[in-house]
């Protein structure tokens, strides 16, 4: 459905995308993951025919975006990083304009109106139909942008950071919407928010400094780079010195204190992957008479993989030090919503 081959894009002396190749099959959701400035937006802009590539080719729905741009563009819906809204237009006027622009001339007026109404229902913006785009909140702007991308029912949807700036509830809605769209549409979405990828995408392309560093399913990536398993253990004040005791358990490689509060102490317990030490840890803590407050596995998250792949080689050996606490706020709103389901304690 989408085929990118040896794509290179240079802006003068700067190489933004360097020999990138990937494919997306019909109906799948492909995530483009990378830090800011990695070349995600540039890749998408080439795919949508917004700008030509310096070298290489991109084919969308069987049409080369460079040699046959009009046909390719007919089959692509694109949501840029900032939704391309005209502030002076109402949502309905805007969508009608986009519909006229994107639908072929053969589509009748009534069909166009029903399309506009259809996408407004789908993206849940019907109540804002007569509001000017300038007066919409960020979340609504994003959804109008999404509606705009969907209006001609494209085979391919290209979404540049579709959930950026949304509140947790909206993020979940947008993700559900994207998941619902897959199947009929092929979706390529870019993000630097990692939980998003593991939740929505079937395959991930990790890009760093314009190069593809990994292409795989989120699960495989996690598996592949998993060297050790880590548990997070929190005990009450009685177990303040549990570190020494914990390290005596068979299979434990390393115990480090993670946080210390008045009522509790948290430890990070690293162990060999092949051994599940959860039962042993729990039994020992109970035997010692300490209060076990929390026990959950810290999976090597996509975040860690991402950090490993996008940082320098010499840092690769280091394990994960990053915790994804449900309401840590490190990733902003997005992570909050995302980690609700991801980081559920399964003790």
């Amino acid at each position, binding site marked *: 459905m989408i085929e990118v081959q040896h794509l290179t894009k240079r802006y*003068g002396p700067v190489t933004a995308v360097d020999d990138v190749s990937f494919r997306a099959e019909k109906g799948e959701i492909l995530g483009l993951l990378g830090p800011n400035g990695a070349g995600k937006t540039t890749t998408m802009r080439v795919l*949508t025919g*917004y*700008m030509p590539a310096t070298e290489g080719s991109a084919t969308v729905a069987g049409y080369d975006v460079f040699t046959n741009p009009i046909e390719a563009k007919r089959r692509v819906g694109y949501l*840029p990083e900032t939704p*391309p809204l*005209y502030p002076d237009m109402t949502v309905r006027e805007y969508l009608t304009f986009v519909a006229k*622009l994107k639908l072929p001339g053969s589509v009748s007026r009534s069909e166009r109106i029903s399309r506009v109404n259809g996408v407004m229902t789908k993206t849940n913006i019907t109540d804002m139909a007569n509001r000017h785009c300038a007066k919409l909140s960020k979340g609504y702007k994003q959804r109008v942008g999404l509606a705009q991308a969907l209006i001609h029912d494209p085979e391919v949807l290209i979404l540049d950071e579709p959930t950026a700036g949304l509140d947790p509830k909206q993020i979940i809605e947008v993700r559900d919407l994207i998941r619902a769209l897959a199947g009929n549409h092929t979706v390529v979405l870019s993000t630097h928010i990692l939980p998003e990828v593991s939740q929505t995408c079937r395959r991930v392309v990790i890009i760093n400094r314009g190069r593809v560093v990994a292409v795989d399913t989120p699960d495989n990536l996690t598996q592949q780079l998993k060297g050790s398993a880590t548990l997070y253990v929190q005990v009450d004040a009685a177990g303040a010195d549990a570190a020494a005791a914990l390290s005596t358990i068979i299979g434990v490689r390393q115990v480090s204190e993670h946080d210390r509060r008045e009522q509790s102490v948290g430890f990070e317990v690293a162990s060999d992957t092949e051994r599940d030490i959860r039962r042993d840890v729990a039994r020992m803590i109970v035997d010692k008479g300490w209060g076990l407050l929390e026990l959950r596995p810290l999976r090597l998250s996509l975040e860690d993989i991402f950090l490993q792949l996008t940082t320098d080689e010499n840092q690769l050996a280091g394990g994960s030090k990053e915790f994804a606490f449900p309401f840590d706020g490190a990733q902003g709103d997005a992570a909050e919503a995302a980690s609700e389901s991801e980081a559920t304690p399964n003790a």
Partner: protein
Amino acid sequence: MRNVFTIAGKELRGFFASPMGWIIMGLFALLFGYFFLAHLDYFVGQSMQAQQGGGPINVNQFMIRPLLQNVALINLFLLPMITMRAYAEEKRSGTIELLLTSPVTDVQIILGKFLGVLGFYAALLAVTMLYIGILFVFGNPEWKPVLTGYFGLLLMGGCFLSVGLFISSTTKNQVVAGAATFVVFLLLWIISWLGQSAGPAVASLLDYLSIVWHFDDFGKGVIDTKHVIYYLSFITFGLFLTLKSVDTERWRG
């Protein structure tokens, strides 16, 4: 062609949906009104004198023609305001991404934008027709030279607008676009002044290049293909430059 009209319609609507369009229209009407009054005053004075000696003087020649020529001056100040946002604003707000990723060609986008701004300019001219209408109510001017005059104004404005579009397509900043457009218009306007101090050969060349000079015959009621072709080729050249500018931007990213 449908795409061209869709974009033209959007541009045109944009003027009437924002205060800017109404401000430009108000200013245009105000300035035209001032010139109308000044010329009317002069004309009344002239015709008083004429009545004392000889027959009545021609309202077309002494009033409407110089009045329409003055529109060129109003254009100089107000047309940059029409074109400055055309591309610059789309580039700043990112809506250009929508246009460039829609199944429309660059030529369709440019023609659409051009027709949009030309349409708005035509609306400005339509407002000035109210003033001319007053002359028809109280006097008896010929309508044909008025019509050719307006046709000429439309073509002359088209030239300014095509240049303005080109300049707007080179920047993200409307203010820069507006200022640069004004300077270029001014140069195109004063180019014929230079001719006055030059030799006859150079003078005729500079006259030929001057957008305003070509309007003269239209004001007299003459549609000379020489001028029509000049204006049309000027417009085509302006739009061609815009096309190249958009294309270059695209490659540069």
